[in-house]
């Protein structure tokens, strides 16, 4: 068993951290307060190569393997305090770019992937509906076959990146009676008649990642924009979720490391009762727990990335990683606030924002409840 990274991989992680420190940490408090997405930071990340990391060079990517990609996203989470920006990029990489790359026709890959990798296009992913969340395949959006394509009717809820998106990968059923086997994927471009991006949704955290509802009213989508075969949508969605669960939380590892270092530094400097607060066991033990959580979460993440690289099934491991990393980030964020005390509760110290951002991780890409359901099933329960 070899846990080491190559010098090149570590140098790349450092380059990502340096880039993030220098380019991505300005104005976050104000952008978070106003719920503003920064197109400039998005383009900077694309120029650096973040969005294209795991995709082939012919599509504008840099063909990094999954382990290197995970390490780079970890570095991004460490260097960049804007969790919303990182989440928005992850939402596109794993749920828009990856399904187009894995299931798209050659023309679809050539048309969309280079722009998405270079930051010229922004993609959204529409699966959840007002009445279907965890029970994803009970969706009601329909795709009726017509001459030359399909007519979509329905709506998609809680769609990340939607307000700024140029295209969306959306799922609709071509045959409700077939349940999951009727679900079919489509690529819908913004501006398509009958397709509207509805009200922007305000939320608790990840505020720099914009979210909205998609509405389809007799929206004609040409056949060449169908993603994969009819009825393959559930498999496309499952595959996307497995990638997302494997990769979307890598930045949490970096963020937890950042929280740990800040907490240690503060516990050494902050004096109460004539000594640094880190000398009090209640404080020290809490920080030790943060360290244990960080390292165990990191092992789960690396294992699932390694399995992906080996081409092995990762259903159980992806669910374990998603559950543990998301819950760990929430707990680590709470522990940070407790260590910083009232200062940690103040917006200007940029400690409390992590907690608001972390809560979303227990909901998106399958809630913690759903991850536990998956794990329980695979355990034979």
């Amino acid at each position: 068993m070899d846990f080491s990274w190559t010098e090149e991989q570590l140098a790349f992680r450092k380059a990502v951290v340096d880039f993030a420190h220098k380019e991505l940490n300005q104005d976050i408090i104000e952008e978070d307060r106003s719920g503003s997405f920064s197109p400039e930071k998005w383009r900077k990340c694309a120029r650096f190569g973040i969005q294209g990391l795991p995709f082939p060079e012919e599509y504008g990517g840099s063909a990094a393997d999954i382990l290197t990609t995970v390490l780079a996203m970890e570095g991004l989470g460490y260097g960049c305090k804007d969790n919303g920006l990182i989440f928005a990029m992850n939402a596109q990489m794993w749920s828009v770019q990856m399904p187009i790359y894995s299931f798209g026709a050659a023309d679809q890959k050539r048309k969309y992937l280079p722009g998405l990798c270079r930051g010229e296009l922004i993609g959204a992913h529409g699966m959840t509906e007002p009445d279907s969340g965890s029970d994803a395949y009970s969706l009601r959006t329909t795709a009726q076959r017509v001459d030359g394509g399909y007519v979509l009717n329905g709506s998609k809820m809680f769609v990340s990146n939607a307000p700024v998106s140029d295209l969306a990968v959306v799922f609709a059923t071509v045959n409700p009676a077939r349940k999951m086997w009727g679900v079919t994927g489509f690529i819908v471009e913004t501006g398509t008649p009958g397709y509207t991006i509805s009200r922007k949704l305000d939320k608790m955290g990840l505020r720099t990642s914009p979210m909205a509802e998609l509405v389809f009213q007799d929206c004609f989508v040409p056949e060449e924009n169908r993603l994969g075969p009819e009825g393959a949508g559930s498999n496309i969605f499952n595959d996307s979720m497995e990638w997302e669960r494997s990769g979307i939380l890598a930045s949490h590892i970096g963020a937890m490391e950042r929280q740990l270092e800040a907490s240690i530094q503060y516990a050494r400097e902050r004096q109460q009762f004539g000594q640094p607060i880190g000398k009090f066991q209640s404080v020290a033990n809490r920080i030790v727990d943060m360290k244990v959580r960080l390292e165990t979460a990191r092992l789960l993440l690396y294992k699932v990335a390694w399995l992906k690289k080996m081409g092995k099934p990762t259903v159980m491991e992806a669910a374990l990683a998603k559950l543990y990393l998301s819950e760990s980030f929430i707990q680590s964020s709470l522990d940070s606030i407790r260590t910083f005390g009232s200062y940690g509760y103040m917006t200007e110290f940029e400690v409390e924002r992590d907690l608001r951002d972390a809560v979303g991780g227990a909901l998106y890409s399958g809630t913690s409840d759903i991850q536990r359901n998956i794990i329980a099933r695979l355990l034979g329960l």
Partner: protein
Amino acid sequence: MDRKIALSDYIKQEVMRNPKANLDDAEDLFNAGILDSLAILQLVAFIEENFKIKIPDEDVIFENFQNLNALASYLETQKAAE
């Protein structure tokens, strides 16, 4: 062991949790509520590991997984193509 029998045994044991269950080769695995999306992922992993047959993502469709007969027939074609 015959692939169809191995598949039937696996589904009865790991999905239905009842090794003595009756499972007809033509029984619709979806309408009978036997296979759901998670069970499909388990089944694909089982096939790839035990039969050494790679199932491309685009082949995971209703027609290939509807019942044991359809699945065995698909795997035969896929094995021959490899």
